[in-house]
């Protein structure tokens, strides 16, 4: 399989539980070494999609393949290709970290001599070597997450699927986790990460998929996402002095859709508004302000935020319901 071919391919995936449609006709693909952020509100269908992908659930229709292997008909091969870390750690009592990893290594059929080296390697990658003699049932949440990632790396899978890896971590541990995920992508692993902590995802993901009510609402890079969901653009106009803020606001208003409003910040000499405007309309606004001799020092569009995109989809869903 060439590096240019997608490693993960999901086509028209649907999963029904009786009348409930958990996943509805979802299609997406992911290339080697990329990180996909999979986001959506609770009960959106993220975990169901992931479970189908790792062979723990069967779809009602559609296909899912990893490195060309069908996730449904060849679930056993999929287990060797995928490392899955669910949102629960899966602690065992009275077991030390090294024994815990050794057990999972043995379960994957790794030979003892190779296993020892592999355990050392994954502990090193996850910076968890110092905790190898600790009991797994008393590890802190951050430590357990790192051991969980070490466990998924043991059999050297091509694709790593992490369900809420940053959940419950303190800011420092979250930064460490972000670095670790980026390091794994550099090692050539393909990652699918679900998270509710959206700023974290936006910093590391190459692609984002937003799922809601089982439907894939948006998929692509962050700018592409903003375009797909028709998200409003946030525009800021900074004036040289606050004197003409009201005049500027009056000049801008006619270009905005009905119901829009302009926020004025006198301390910052700033006008701020949110609207779905074309490039042509933007030009007209700038021309209008210049013709009115209003001293504009900056005219800028704020970068699309993943959180905004997520909120936008959620609000659309609520409005639809």
């Amino acid at each position, binding site marked *: 399989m060439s590096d240019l071919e997608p490693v993960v391919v999901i086509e028209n995936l649907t999963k029904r539980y009786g009348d409930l449609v958990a996943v509805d006709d979802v299609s997406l693909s992911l290339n080697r070494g990329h990180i996909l952020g999979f986001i959506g509100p609770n009960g959106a269908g993220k975990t169901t999609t992931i479970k189908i992908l*790792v062979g723990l659930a069967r779809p009602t229709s559609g296909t899912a393949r990893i490195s060309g292997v069908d996730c449904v008909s060849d679930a056993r091969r999929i287990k060797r290709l995928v490392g899955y870390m669910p949102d*629960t750690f*899966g602690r065992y009592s*009275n*077991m030390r970290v090294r024994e815990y990893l050794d057990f999972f290594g043995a*379960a*994957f059929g790794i030979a003892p001599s190779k296993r020892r080296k592999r355990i050392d390697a994954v502990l090193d990658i996850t910076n968890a070597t110092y905790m190898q003699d600790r009991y797994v049932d*008393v590890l802190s949440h951050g430590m357990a997450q790192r051991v969980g990632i070490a466990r998924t790396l043991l059999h050297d899978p091509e694709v790593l699927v992490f369900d809420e890896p940053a959940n419950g971590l303190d800011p420092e541990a979250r930064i460490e986790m972000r670095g670790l995920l980026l390091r794994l992508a550099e090692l050539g692993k393909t990652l699918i990460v679900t998270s509710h902590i959206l700023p974290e995802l936006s910093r590391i993901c190459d692609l984002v998929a937003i799922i809601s009510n089982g439907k894939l609402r948006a998929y692509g890079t962050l700018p592409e996402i903003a375009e797909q969901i028709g998200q409003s653009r946030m525009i800021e106009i900074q004036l040289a002095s606050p004197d003409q803020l009201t005049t500027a606001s009056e000049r801008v208003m006619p270009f905005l859709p009905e119901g829009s409003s302009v926020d004025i910040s006198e301390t910052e000499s700033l006008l701020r508004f949110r609207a779905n405007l074309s490039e042509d309309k933007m030009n007209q606004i700038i021309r209008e302000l210049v013709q009115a001799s209003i001293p504009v020092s900056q005219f800028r569009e704020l970068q699309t935020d993943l959180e905004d995109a997520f909120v936008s989809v959620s609000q659309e869903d609520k409005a639809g319901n």
Partner: protein
Amino acid sequence: MFSNPIIQRELIGMLRSRRALVIQVLLVAIFGLLVVLRWPSDPRVDLNGARSMQVFRLFGYGLLSAIVLLVPAFPAASIVREKQQGTLALLLNTPMSAGQIYLGKLLGVMAFVFIVLALSLPAAVACYAMGGISLQQGLLPLYLLLVLVALQYSSLALLISSHATSTDSAMKLTYGAILVLAVVTLGPYLFLQGVPGEEAAAWLRSLSPLPAVMEILGQRDLGGQGLEVIGGSHWKYSMLSVLSTVVMSCLTLRRLNVRIFDETRAQGVMTHELVGARRFLRNLVYMAGVTDPQRRRGEISRLFNPVMVKEFRCRRFGRLHWILRLVAGCAILSFLLTFLGLFGTHGWGVERIGGILVILQVSLVVLLTPSITAGLISGERESGSWQLLQMTPMSGWKIIRGKLLSVVYTLLLLVMATLPAYVVMIALRAEMQKQVIEVLFCLLATVVFCLSVSALISSLVRTTAVATTASFCVLVGLFAGTLLFWLGEGAPFGHDLVEAVLKVNPLAAALAAMQMPGFTSYDLVPHNWYIIGSASLLAFAALAVQTIKLTRPQ
């Protein structure tokens, strides 16, 4: 006192559970059935009240079994579950004192006990209406004693719950402690009657509610062997019960403060980190480091099922040093019993000693099997690690095989540790060879049956605590419950009925095979093997179906 919010929450929480509903419905049905079965159907007048007494005894033992088996499950999980869920910290941060919290929990359980006892009242009144039972000397003392039993075992369960680290271990330890208090304490008295130390043994057996209940129900003393019965068992039990309840309550109250969260598990120093004499000494004590729990273990060999090795390593007593200690303890105990019986108590006979050995072995199996088997699958599902096992290339069969093997090896080791005593027995009386072989078959049937039933229950429920309780109830119900019929032979049960009931009990079959006095008139082997074998096969078949269901994609 009843405005205590914990009483309301505990009681309502208990009554909301499906388990409580099943318990209540079953109890009403069983109590009703007990009375209906023995209600007189002929027109003869029972002038001496013997028939009503027969019904009353059956009813009394049934009620005692219900209280002993069902009630401790609730308090055993009570404190440890709150600790795990974080709600105990919230409770300790409220203005409520530790005493109020404890009292709330204890009275919450006792309120449930009162409901259970109230459910039994119609059946009790029916017994009373038949005549021949005294309200002051029969019915009322029985109910008061049962309240004391519930109080004692609930406070014991709460004490264990306050020290346990998981609901599962709390449940196992509670039932283990209750078995010791209710049954094992009867043992020394069997040996020491008529010799110095009898009085102490009599006090020890008073810790068990069984002699007290038997006394109230007007029955011969358990293991009395025709000797004069020491009276006042129910007074002794009442006194010890109240005393132990107070002591256990004080100990639990000492635990109920914020320090309960300060405990962290010591990691210990790994042996390879030790230097010089300390390392040498440690290696010496732990057989060149082979059994050293602080030694970094080697990789799991390809020759072993990894799940089996994992199960041994996860058990607190599954590590090699503990297994060797347990095996050695069992071997020493069985030898001691044999020599004590053969040379210390001349009138006993080899059959009686053999019987005691059988009881020891079966008790060990019945106590141990649910505690190590019930969490095999339910524990994995409860902690979320079942999903991780599913994500490995291991088949469902390999997973289950590894789990079952870990129990089989442990049980076989322990049972085999008690076998040398049989060798001594055969060496002394060669004609006992056939008896011993039959007993060994019964023991094997016991191991297989306990394993299959506990494993099946473990695959059916999601929580280890429920699986452990259900397994204990089923096994103790079968092994001890059916012996109630044996106790009632002649009155109210006939020999044929008792024999038919005992055919399902491997312990009774082993005792009959050993020709233990009291069991010589029953012909239980090989019928028992067929019944237990078929039941085990059915349980394994159901386990196989359940394994397929659990391991296939959703």
